[in-house]
């Protein structure tokens, strides 16, 4: 087992554990914190995959911005008793079937992936400027998507303000 493998399993284990923490914790604040760990774990995975730029974006946007947003939201709407903030759903059926289906989907996709004849992995050209390549794509072939994403963010901001601000009384 080389270093890469050890790193992979450690990081994966951490990520999965944190993700489980998100869905299993009864305290929403704990969940949020576990979520940050998950995000960081995923960022680590990106680094492992030679996607350094993406790992940074992940840390900045997810672990940074989104998490803060979520925690703010939690503060705004939190139940007084922290241990009752993130209860499991009262419907046992939903819980049961949700779990079962999650397993089925994991198994099904897992089987599909396991049985899939993947092509031989190609070696990465080491000398390329990957960030530059992303930038080229972003402002080249994918400029429409890029602009759309910009509009999307504007829209989301405006929408979030309107929705969160609520109706002026009177």
């Amino acid at each position: 087992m080389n270093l890469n493998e050890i790193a992979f399993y450690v990081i994966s284990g951490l990520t999965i554990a944190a993700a489980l923490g998100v869905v299993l914790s009864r305290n929403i604040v704990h969940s949020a914190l576990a979520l940050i760990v998950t995000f960081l774990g995923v960022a680590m995975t990106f680094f492992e995959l030679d996607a350094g730029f993406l790992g940074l974006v992940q840390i900045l946007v997810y672990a940074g911005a989104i998490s803060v947003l979520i925690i703010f939201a939690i503060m705004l709407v939190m139940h007084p008793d922290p241990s009752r903030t993130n209860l499991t759903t009262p419907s046992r059926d939903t819980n049961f079937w949700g779990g079962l289906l999650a397993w089925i989907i994991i198994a099904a996709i897992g089987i599909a992936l396991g049985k899939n004849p993947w092509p031989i992995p190609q070696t990465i050209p080491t000398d390329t400027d990957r960030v530059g390549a992303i930038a080229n794509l972003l402002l080249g072939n994918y400029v429409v998507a890029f602009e759309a994403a910009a509009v999307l963010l504007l829209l989301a901001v405006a929408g979030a303000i309107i929705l969160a601000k609520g109706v002026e009384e009177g």
Partner: protein
Amino acid sequence: MIGLNHYLFLATLLFGIGIYGVFAKRNAVAILMSIEIMLNAVNINFVAINRFIQPADTVGQLFAIFVIVVAAAEVSVGLALIISIYRQRKSVNLDDFNLMKW
């Protein structure tokens, strides 16, 4: 050797955990968080596939960036919605939101 499938299995597991989270929780924020986990799983997929199958370009990574952007927008709108509905109902429990049914 860690191959593509390792990453894909990791992603699948995260995806499954996210799915389970959607059903296991009643707090709307927690459900948004579960969905974020699912999106992250997808991102792992894209990056790993990009790395192992088509290392020559960065389309997978680009896809992941867009997913992150969209997820950010989605979360902000989602949280705003939760706040908006909390203001009316004083609750963020999804099972309270059933004015419309049948």
